[in-house]
């Protein structure tokens, strides 16, 4: 029996195949409907657009003070906000396209963007 020996041509073919597979996984397994970006609005105007896979903490200035927004591994949430009832904080982590958390008193909102949103509309 011959050993496990690859020719240079085989190596090239395998390399191309591996590249193709890696490309397929990134192309088709990019969290579908799972938003990859979020948008922060202050007073109805866009304040920032966030990459959900870039972990960061933001201090968003509103009329009452700073709302603290956190981005971790594909999710985002309000950690704290200078409002009386903390509805935005209690909304918790957002990850699905279309999900939204709003701090009305501080006029800050956080929404997950997606080409194929999980929700068409959300009522409170």
């Amino acid at each position, binding site marked *: *029996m011959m050993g496990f020996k*690859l020719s240079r041509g085989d190596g090239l073919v395998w390399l191309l195949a591996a590249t193709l597979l890696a490309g397929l996984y990134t192309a088709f397994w990019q969290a579908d409907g799972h938003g990859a970006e979020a948008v922060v609005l202050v007073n109805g105007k866009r304040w920032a657009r966030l990459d959900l896979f870039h972990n960061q903490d933001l201090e968003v200035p509103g009329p009452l003070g700073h709302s603290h927004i956190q981005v971790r591994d594909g999710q985002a949430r309000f950690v704290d906000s200078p409002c009386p009832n903390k509805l935005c904080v209690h909304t918790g982590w957002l990850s699905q396209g279309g999900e939204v958390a709003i701090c009305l008193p501080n006029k800050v909102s956080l929404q997950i963007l997606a080409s194929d949103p999980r929700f068409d509309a959300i009522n409170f």
Partner: protein
Amino acid sequence: MNQTLQTTRDDHLIAGFAALAITIHIAESALPSPLPGIKPGLANVVTLMVLCRYGWQMAAWVALLRVLVGSILIGTFLSPTFFLSAAGALASVGVLGLLFAFSRGFPRWAVSPLGFGVAAALAHMSGQFWLAYVVFVPHSGLLALYPLLMTLAAVLGVVSGLLTRTVLGRLKKPLPSTP
């Protein structure tokens, strides 16, 4: 009136190898499969072996005859299974043709059964997958399966390449092909 069809030695070889491939194809179709579209592709070993010994043209004949006659014998001729199988075989024969020409053109980069096997398996899977996606089940959920199916195809391609190499190693030198 007595007419004899002139046959060459290549025709006999094609018929023989196709018969072998069809037998394996049918035996394999009796095996249960965990996922639709996933088969070990043992019949493809015959195609690869013919490719390495006699060149692309004969391999193409063997592969396409296998799909055609195999489906007639199993009873899936002109059914979706047949079209999926045919799309896969055509894609795989096409890719093998390109690789074979490349191998001939650049002998330093010659491809062995291990390379052919992986390329053929990936092409076969792609051919049948895209036909399935475009014609039979145009639902975007199917796309999520594609990388997974391709990974399995690559693994099975390595297996069929190894098998082909083992078979080739045990065969005698091929007789020269008739011109």
